[in-house]
């Protein structure tokens, strides 16, 4: 099957390759070792494969790898710089929002994008819930996830860090 050349950045590093047009971004990333990107359904219902494409959260299972050409991809592996967790990652730990952990990478990326788009705006529970409705979690009942989002927002406000 047809291969197309693409160049992209993943967590800040440049990649160039030829990809089979049938490949999903999920498969491409996992094949490169970004195994935080989990397949939970393959049809965009669960959000476990959420990554950021140019800052926008997408289900990588429903995104062709060739669409990632010239784009910047972020996965949860890249959110921990020099061994320092991002405020979102820290907040997930501190609020106990991590249980089985399978939905966690996708949720952390959804929260990351959600907060980057709403810097310094007050958040209601309803807004947070709507902003995370594309990620299923069967362990937490979402209670600690919502708290983690609130905590991460507080951290970001305090530190002024993106």
């Amino acid at each position, binding site marked *: 099957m047809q291969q197309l050349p693409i160049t992209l950045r993943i967590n800040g590093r440049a990649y160039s390759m030829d990809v089979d047009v049938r490949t999903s971004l999920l498969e491409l990333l996992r094949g490169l070792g970004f*195994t935080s990107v*989990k397949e939970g359904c393959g049809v965009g219902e669960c959000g476990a494969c959420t990554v950021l494409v140019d800052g926008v959260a997408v289900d990588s299972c429903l995104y062709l790898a060739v669409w990632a050409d010239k784009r910047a991809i972020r996965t949860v592996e890249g959110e921990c710089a020099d061994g320092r967790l991002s405020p979102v990652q820290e907040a997930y730990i501190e609020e106990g929002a*991590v249980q089985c952990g*399978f939905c*966690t990478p996708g949720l*952390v990326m959804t929260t990351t994008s959600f907060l980057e788009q709403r810097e310094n705006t007050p958040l209601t529970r309803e807004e947070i819930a709507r902003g995370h409705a594309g990620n299923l979690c*069967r362990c*937490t009942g979402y209670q600690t996830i919502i708290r983690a989002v609130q905590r991460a927002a507080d951290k970001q406000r305090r530190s002024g860090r993106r």
Partner: protein
Amino acid sequence: MSVGTAVIRKDARAKVTGKARYTDDQSMAGMLVARYVRSPVAHGLVREIDTSAALALPGVEAVFTYEHVPTTLFATAGHPYSLDPDHRDVADRLLLTGHVRYQGDEVAIVVARDELTAKRAAALVRVEYDELPVCTTPEAALAHGAPAIHEGGNILERTELTFGPPVAEAMEAADLQLDGHYNTPVVLHCHLENHTAFAYMDDNDHIVIVSSTQIPHICRRIVGQALDMEWSRIRVIKPHIGGGFGNKQDVVLEPMVAFLTLQLGGVPVRITLDREECLVATRTRHSQQVTVRAGLKRDGTITGIEMDITSNTGAYASHGHSIPMAAGSKFRHLYPRTAIRFTATTHYANIPAAGAMRAYGSPQLFFGLECLLDDAARSLGVDPVELRLHNVARAGEITTPDGGTRYAVAIARCLEQGRDAIGWQRKKKELQNQDGPVRRGLGVAAFSYGSGTYPACVEIAGCRLVLNQDGSVHMQIGATEIGQGSDTALAQMAARTLGIDYDRIHVVSQQDTDVTPFDTGAYASRQTYVAAPAVHEAAERLRQKILAACSGLTGTPARELELAEGRIIRAGEPAEEIMSLGELALSEYYHKERGGQLVAEVSAKTVTNAPSFGCTFVDLAVDIELCQVTIHKIINVHDAGRIIHPLSAAGQVHGGMAMAIGMALFEELLIDPAGGRICNGNLLDYKVPTCTDIPELDCAFVEEPDPTSPYGNKSLGEPPIISPAPAIRNGILDATGVAINELPMTPKLLFREFRKAGLLPG
């Protein structure tokens, strides 16, 4: 003092950074993938099967059909082996079958070099069926002349339990007798990680299986049985696992991947179910019909309860009759002064096989019981909380089997605390005489559960502690971390008993049956309760070995030494530090003549089973016209003994409550009774609640340490799912006066019931 504090979970950093490796995150060069060929019909016999087109597809390595697999029937339920042949699980499975029993049953399997090829090849296997009549419901399956789904007929088992005085007399003594009939649906686990496993051989005699399983040691035994191999020749490795909720307390893929690698010369072969397969072709929660009859005195005393459960186990037995029986033996602790007669029937049907799911039959049973008690409270004019307070277990009423120890019981305090938290008395007054399309209501329900399976099954756990050269300790446990936080809780326990920092305990999270101490796994809310004695004893022994070694080195009598915060000190005022644990360890490892690696290993059997309790209170509104329920406030209060890790404990409660809200209002697998077609076997149509569907969840604990655990703890993983559904139902009853006796209480069902009750035109 690590026990009782919310230390950082052992696996938290790995999970938020994506480093935690699950089964599918490990790949091996040359790994093949396998895909099942599934039956589109719900009941039938394969007349003809043609694999030639599939085999001809480039990239296909092999195709096996039901004609190629061993003919030994095996049982899949994740129970410990039983020495009593009568107590063993029903062996009714083959690796593949020519007699398909539900839509999705497995007749063949293709092995290919990549997933797309495997998928294409599976579609190319041509199968023709002689269809048989389909029974999906108890009425159809138990009807005279119903087609036999398995040899021996459709009834798996029928049993009776009685507790307390004779029920007939107790019913006679009642002022009110009331009965109710309740239905619960097929519910799915929907763990985020689908079932997946791979197997390979690294010599000619042993098979290695890597699997997302809750029960590695049980899995080893069942694979050995299914393939007729010595159990020790099977090695099961359990990496991080993305949720199980009971669905991975069953052996689903492992015998097949083991069979395939054995057939293909030991090359690695993987099966990863896709979401749709995982929803319908693994296990489900049993749909049950619960009939309850209760006798009550005018003051609210429950004199007797008669309960009859019909449990639909679907196409294969799996956990089968254990489900209603386990629930039937646990609920008596809630109302121990009541005479009880419990009967249950489990039957086959042409629907997906039901197995273990969080709280193992108790959510169904308590839905019936706690709904009926609310109906009774209304009939008697007694407040439903008062009715429960009047009847629930009191301190000292429940003892160990030998009568020697009284378990902790704090359910009454849970009810009182929940009542206050929801504002029961005040709101009850405010909510009188409502009309209009939107009405508020309050609901309550209570439950009891166990901590493990004893005396039905053996309760065994193992712990090995090794002092490292740097003074830290590696902990190996058979207990499996499945997200519930057992690694963390057990490390907290070990740290406390040893006298070292929690951070100095390294947990080997991955179980490997070749090296991990034996434990049957994560199920029955047993893990921290059953592993605690092993951990406690191993930590105590290692502590003594450390002190003895220090004594040998320094000449100070061991009885004068203590281990505290990783340092060995001589007791007294002031205490004198003798040496750090690291210094002692180096000496023990590397002194040329004396010492050695300090290790303590304990395998312990638990012969107690502490009852745990709790309740749910809910404040909700019903929009009668839109047939929708909105939960304003919901709280679970638990009597789970001493809480080891408050954050994880709350997490277990939240998760259980959300799953219960799903069961109450959203979730059911719909199966067409005419042909057994599954209507909604995907995540769009099977309605797992999203973040927007779950309200704020509250929880609280009444901490009464249980004397049968060295750390005072008892079960918490499963119980939170039991009482929310009946509490919500009772809240709807309070709001509208309409008793809904079926789950899930979707808008469609509410529409039907509200219309029947005259609340809606029709």
